């Protein structure tokens, strides 16, 4: 099925048909992950001269290879399992870095994000979920519910302190 046909199917499916929509998702997922599946199969069952090429290609396939690498990890020998998991962890951390990069400018965005929430508040709450803090660092900042109970000025103050914190600056060392 071509990409256009998939789009047409999405259009034809009813929103009240979650099974049909999930089936479509399954087909899209299978297709997106197909190349990684083939490359991994070649790596595991093919000749030894693919020992460098296949992992390199998998690593280049980025998010398209993650699911297949996790699946394969269960059934390969330990050295390959470690190699697969290194690539999976790299990709996961790349997702995290990208998310934080998208969130960073939003910490200054005071436009409304619905009800009492501003974009900067929502971005801050999300950043705090993504960035782990030790107990000493965490003591300087509010928990989720505590932050939302603060007034607007206090929230601005906390976000300002956060953007000046060592924990936040450590994520973007090149910008300091």
């Amino acid at each position: 099925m071509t990409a256009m046909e998939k789009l047409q199917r999405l259009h034809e499916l009813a929103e009240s048909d979650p099974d049909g929509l999930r089936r479509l998702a399954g087909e899209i997922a299978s297709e997106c992950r197909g190349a990684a599946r083939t490359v991994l199969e070649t790596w595991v069952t093919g000749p030894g001269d693919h020992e460098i090429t296949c992992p390199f290609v998998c690593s280049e396939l980025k998010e398209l290879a993650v699911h297949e690498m996790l699946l394969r990890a269960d059934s390969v020998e330990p050295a390959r399992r470690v190699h697969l998991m290194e690539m999976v962890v790299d990709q996961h951390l790349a997702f995290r870095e990208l998310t934080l990069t998208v969130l960073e400018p939003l910490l200054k965005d005071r436009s409304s994000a619905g009800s009492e929430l501003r974009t900067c508040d929502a971005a801050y709450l999300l950043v705090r979920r993504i960035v782990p803090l030790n107990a000493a660092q965490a003591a300087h900042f509010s928990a989720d519910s505590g932050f939302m109970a603060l007034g607007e000025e206090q929230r601005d103050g906390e976000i300002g302190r956060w953007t000046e914190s060592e924990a936040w600056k450590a994520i973007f060392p090149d910008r300091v």
Partner: protein
Amino acid sequence: MDFHAAETLAGDVMKDARVPLHQLYRTIALSGHPDRSKAQIVLEALDELSIMPWLAAAGKLSGTHRIQALFEAHRASKRLEERVVETLRSMLPGHAPLPPPPILQGPVEVEPPVTRECDEAYLLLRRLHRPDEATADAREHDSFWRHTREEERDRLIRLYVDTGEFQ
């Protein structure tokens, strides 16, 4: 190995394979698109494949839709992390020594330290636990770990399994 050819191949594959994801992104990035809700349902079922489309859509949307896209990306990422941690934890009982990496196989001046599946899984779990540690510090820790006595490494792995804490 021809890295350039492999890179080009991977680039071509990605371009084709990402087309349906790109279409879903375009559908959710338009807040008034008639198929937007359905595209959201499809994306939610795509797990880690949905992260990039959600993040890209967040750049185009505003207000609640933008925040929703960011939270969806985060949720998909958390689900992936849970799977990764589960797999890595399942590797912690593996004490078989690993062969040295291909680049260090054959005669070498200094033998690399023997490392086991559990050691490498522990180091990856620690990386996930401390993702913002400076690269130099992380490398220094990993090297220190690989040169630590096996009994001590086993003790620290047990400590992590019991408490979820790293030293």
